[in-house]
C-alpha cells in the first residue's frame, strides 16, 4: 500500500457470454477500469451475476475478455500467469486423491519450482495457515474451513505477488468465516501480497479490505470505491467499532439498490400480477 505502485491495471474490460441474439447471451461485465495497488486487499462486492467473478477470471487469465485489457506487473494478461498470480476457488479445488502435503507440492510442480525446495516451502506454508499437523490427511478428512486453509497454503507456497480469491469462504459457516478472515488479515500484514477478493458478505468486505469496489447490477461495472483506512492485522474488536458499523451500513446502502435491480429483473410473474400489473 505504501508505494502506490500499480500491480494490476484494468482498462475498459467488458465481457459477454455468447453472441447477441442467442438465448444464452449475457452481458456480464461492462466497460470496467480499475487500478489495483501493490500490497492492498481489494474486495469486489456486488449483486449475484454482476460480473465480479468474471472480472476475477479475466485478471487471472482464465477468461479472455470480449473487450479491454488487463496488465499484471506491466505485462498484458493473455493466459494464466502462474509465477505472478495464485488462485483460490470457492471450494473443492484440492485434488481429493492426494494428501494436503501432496496437493501443495503438486502446485509447486505445476509452477516449476525446483524439487529440492518443495519440502521446505510446503512445510512453511502449511505452518503459516496452521495445518502442519494435517499434512498427511486427505481433503475428505478435513473440515470445510481446513480445506480452504490447505488451498491457501498451496497458493502461498507458490510465492506469487498476487492472490485472487473467488468467494473463498463462501461455503463455510459464519464462525469459520470469521476466524479465517482474521487469520487472513494477519497473514496479509506479514506477506504484503496484493489480494483481490470476491465476496457476497458486507461484513467480510468491511473487515478485510483496504478498498471495496462496489459493483452495479448486470452488466456490472464499478459503481463506487470505498477506502477503509485501518491497518492490518485487524483486531477482532474492529468488528464492533462504530467505524465498522458505519462502513457496513454505507456498503449496504450502496448495494441495496443494485440488489433490488438484480432481483427485480428475475421477480416471479405472479407477484407482479397481484399488484395489478402496476410498475
Amino acid at each position, binding site marked *: 500500500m505504501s508505494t502506490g505502485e500499480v500491480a494490476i491495471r484494468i482498462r475498459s474490460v467488458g465481457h459477454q457470454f455468447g453472441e447477441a441474439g442467442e438465448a444464452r447471451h449475457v452481458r456480464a461485465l461492462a466497460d470496467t477500469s480499475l487500478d489495483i495497488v501493490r500490497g492492498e486487499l481489494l474486495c469486489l462486492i456486488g449483486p449475484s451475476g454482476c460480473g465480479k467473478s468474471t472480472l476475477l477470471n479475466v485478471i487471472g487469465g482464465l477468461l479472455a475478455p470480449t473487450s479491454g485489457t488487463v496488465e499484471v506487473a506491466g505485462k498484458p494478461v493473455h493466459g494464466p500467469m502462474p*509465477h505472478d498470480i495464485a488462485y483460490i476457488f470457492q471450494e473443492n479445488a484440492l485434488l481429493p486423491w492426494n494428501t494436503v502435503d501432496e496437493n501443495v507440492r503438486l502446485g509447486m*510442480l505445476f509452477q516449476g519450482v525446483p524439487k529440492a525446495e518443495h519440502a521446505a516451502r510446503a512445510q512453511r506454508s502449511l505452518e503459516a495457515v496452521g495445518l502442519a499437523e494435517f499434512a498427511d490427511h486427505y481433503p475428505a478428512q478435513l473440515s470445510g474451513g481446513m480445506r480452504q486453509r490447505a488451498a491457501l497454503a498451496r497458493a502461498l507456497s507458490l510465492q506469487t505477488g498476487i492472490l485472487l480469491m473467488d468467494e473463498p469462504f463462501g461455503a463455510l459457516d459464519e464462525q469459520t468465516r470469521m476466524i479465517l478472515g482474521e487469520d487472513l488479515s494477519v497473514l496479509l500484514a506479514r506477506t504484503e501480497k496484493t489480494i483481490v477478493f470476491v465476496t457476497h458478505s458486507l461484513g467480510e468486505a468491511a473487515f478485510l479490505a483496504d478498498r471495496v469496489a462496489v459493483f452495479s447490477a448486470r452488466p456490472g461495472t464499478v459503481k463506487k470505491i470505498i477506502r477503509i483506512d485501518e491497518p492490518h492485522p485487524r483486531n477482532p474488536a474492529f468488528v464492533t467499532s462504530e467505524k465498522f458499523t458505519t462502513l457496513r451500513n454505507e456498503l449496504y446502502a450502496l448495494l441495496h439498490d443494485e440488489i433490488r435491480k438484480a432481483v427485480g429483473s428475475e421477480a416471479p410473474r405472479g407477484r407482479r400480477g397481484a399488484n395489478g400489473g402496476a410498475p
Partner: protein
Amino acid sequence: MARRREAMERLASRAVQIGFLLALLASWYAATNFWGVNHLLLPNPVAVFHQLVDVLKTGQFLPDLRVTATEFAAAFVLAMTSGMLVGCFVSRSRYWVAVFEPLFAGIYSIPIILLLPLYVLFFGLGPASKIALGTTISFFPVVLSTIAGFGHVDRTLVTAARSMGASDYQLFRYVLVPAALPVILTGLRIGFTVALLAILGSETIASLAGLGHHIVQLAESMEMARMFAYIAFVVAITVLLNGLVSHLEARGRRHE
C-alpha cells in the same frame, strides 16, 4: 453399537446365502439318491466330487486351462489397451464424444456373440476367433467407461491446475487420469467379466481346445460326472478371478 449391529446383520445375510447354497447341494444329493433322477441327466454330487479330485490330481485340466487362459489374457489386454486408448482420444474433443459415445453405446447393446460365426470364418476354429470375440465384447465397456470417466472430471480441478501452470501432460497425469480412474476401473471389471464369458461361451460353441471345448466333449461322450467336475472347476476359477478384480477396483477407488 451401531457398527456391531451392522456386522451382525452382515453375518446373518452371509449365513442365509451359504444356507441357500447348501440347501441347493442337499436337494441335488436327494434328487439323485432318493428321487430317482437319471444319472445321465444329473450325476450324483459325490461322484462329481470324486471326479473333481481326480481332475485336479492328474492335472489333466492343464492344457485346456492354458489355452483358455491365453485366449482370455490376450483378449482382455487387447480390449483394455484399445478401449482406453480410443476412449482417451475421443475424450479430447467434445465433438468426438458427441459422435462416438452413442455409437459405441449402441453397438454395445446388440448381442455381439452373433459375430462368432463370422469370426470363425475369418480366423478359423483356433484361439484367434475366441480372442477376436472376447476383445470385441469387452472393448465396449472399457471405452465407454473411459469416455464417461474423462467426461466427468470436476472443472474446478482442471481450472485450478491450469492456473498454477500445469502443462498438458501434467494435467493428464495428475488431474485427469486420477479423476477418471474409478469409473475406468469399473469399466475394466465389467470388461474382464464379459471377456471371460465370451471366451468360455465361444469355446463351447465352436473350438478345438480350451476348458469350454472340453466340457462340451464330455457332454457329448455322456461323461456327466466329469463334465460337472469341470464346470465346478471353471466356476471356482471365475469366482476367484472376479473376487480379485473387485478387490483391485475397490483399492483403486479408496479415496472417494
